[in-house]
């Protein structure tokens, strides 16, 4: 039998075509990622406007009017902020933690979180309600699902009706800088559970035990 051939040209062409198709996919994907970031900017503005509305109502001096509005509206506002945060985390995962648009959105989100937190603190004391509150400082550098404290908190917070506020210590904003200074954050993850400080990774069960003790 005659010698066998090698269709090297065919393999090369197939490689070039595949590379082109792949590049088109990647470019389109990134483009869609950008439009998603713009869309999220609009959503953040809407969320901020909604938060301002709730805030204005709670500024009313008369607790008889303010408290029922706070109690009916704040939970929904918190929920929407949480959902927004989850989408932002997804966007960060896709675009990278150093992406400037993501960081800008995270600045706005941190401000939203702080405002919600302060609003809640004020209204809890005025309306005589007591909520479980977890403030969670984290960093996405060297991220791995095994050490994602957010996943651990997510297993427990609903069980205790706890409000969790997440702050990425790498976000360069006055809000985050102020909070870091206020709670003297030197390492992550750090959790402030109902004012009690816990540094280092905490499994869900450990968080549960703290909340159970505090609520006993």
């Amino acid at each position, binding site marked *: 039998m005659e010698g066998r051939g090698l269709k090297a040209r*065919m393999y090369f062409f197939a490689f070039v075509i595949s590379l082109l198709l792949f590049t088109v996919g990647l470019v389109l*994907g990134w483009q869609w990622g950008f439009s998603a970031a713009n869309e999220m900017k609009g959503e953040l503005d809407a969320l901020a406007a909604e938060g301002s509305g709730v805030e204005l109502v709670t500024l009313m001096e008369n607790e008889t009017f303010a408290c029922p509005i706070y109690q009916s509206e704040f939970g929904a506002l918190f929920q929407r902020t949480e959902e927004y945060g989850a989408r932002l985390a*997804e966007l960060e995962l896709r675009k990278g933690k150093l992406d400037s648009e993501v960081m800008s959105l995270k600045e706005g989100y941190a401000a939203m979180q702080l405002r919600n937190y302060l609003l809640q603190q004020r209204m809890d004391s005025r309306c005589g309600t007591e909520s479980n509150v977890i403030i969670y400082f984290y960093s996405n550098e060297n991220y791995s*699902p095994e050490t994602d404290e957010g996943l651990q908190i997510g297993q427990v917070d609903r069980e205790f009706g706890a409000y969790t506020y997440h702050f990425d210590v790498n976000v360069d904003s006055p809000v985050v800088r102020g909070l870091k200074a206020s709670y003297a954050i030197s390492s992550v993850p750090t959790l402030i559970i109902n004012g009690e400080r816990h540094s280092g990774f905490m499994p869900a069960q450990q968080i549960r035990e703290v909340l159970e003790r505090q609520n006993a």
Partner: protein
Amino acid sequence: MSSLLGFFLAFVTVYLSVLFLLIYMENAEEMEDPQPSRFPSIDIIVPAYNEEEHIAETIESLLELEYEGKKRIIVVNDGSKDRTLAVAKRFVKKGVLVLDKPNGGKASAMNVGLKHANAELVAVLDADSIVAEDALGHMVGYFDDKRVAAVTPMMKVWRSSTPVQALQRAEYIVNSFAKKVLEQLDSITVTPGPFSIYRRDVLSKLGGFDEKTVTEDQEIALRIQKANWKIASSYGAVVYTDAPSSLLELYKQRKRWYRGFLENAWRYRGLIHPSYGDLGMFVLPSTLALVVVGIFGLFYSLYSTLASPFALRVDLAPMFLGPSELVIAIAALCSFSLVILAARKLNERNPVSLFISTAIMSPLMAVFWLFIILGAVKDSISGVRLAWKGEG
């Protein structure tokens, strides 16, 4: 890490689909079955073990084969414990040669048949398969090329009475089409038990079928390749074969196939050499590389999922259409084009249902595959003897 692996596998899918489509487009005209210039004599060997259910139908399908040349059917009963021999003997008066031997495995039964064969061509047919009436006419034309030592048919699933069989339908179609494309690269590495035809003198010169391997159809194909003969694949010769009906049967079958693949890959590692052209420089190295990456990828995915089940939630519910989704969509589109083309060329009526089957089958097989490979490696190391498909 996992996204890098995902991108790599998506790229490989796109690359292989594009490559197959390019090869198809360049050779489309040459891929049609050639008209035979003559009709050489042919002996059809049917090795049978405990096939009382299927053997009559199989022999009848062979007797009904349209063929202008001389043909003879040789049934070799390999010490069946059921009524296979008695059923086969009913066809003696119709000219079927029925041989009986003590149980020794499929390859030994085929070798006994080969010893009794005297025709120019020898076909082998598993006793659980039936052949379309016009199959021989589609296949023998390839032997006009003196370099061709074997011709394989298009295999389809005989009955799709269970979901597992229905899922394999698509797989068989795609594999048959892939084999036709691989023919253009002189790189067919298996001559399946269901109705492959060989030149008898070449088969005898090469020493017949290997009785020690668990996949004699793959081993003989690699031996033919090593001896620099060609293996062709026919579009039009359709053979219907009984596919495993349950996951357990499928597991046993595939474990045997992969064990044979691993053992034969090692045994014929010398084929990975520039002198074997596309086979030695592309097909065999890339197949082995994909097996290694596949094993690593599946272990890694399994480890990541078990280590952090909550992380899976994020991956399964993407909220944005990003680069990963786009490249996966492109890979799926390329595979879809290939399935549609395969279905069209093989006269399948419903290519969309075939694609859906493929889409279901692929992830199922990916998980299943890891267990199959592990089982195959274990069997290979412990040397478990598998006499007939799935036994042992």
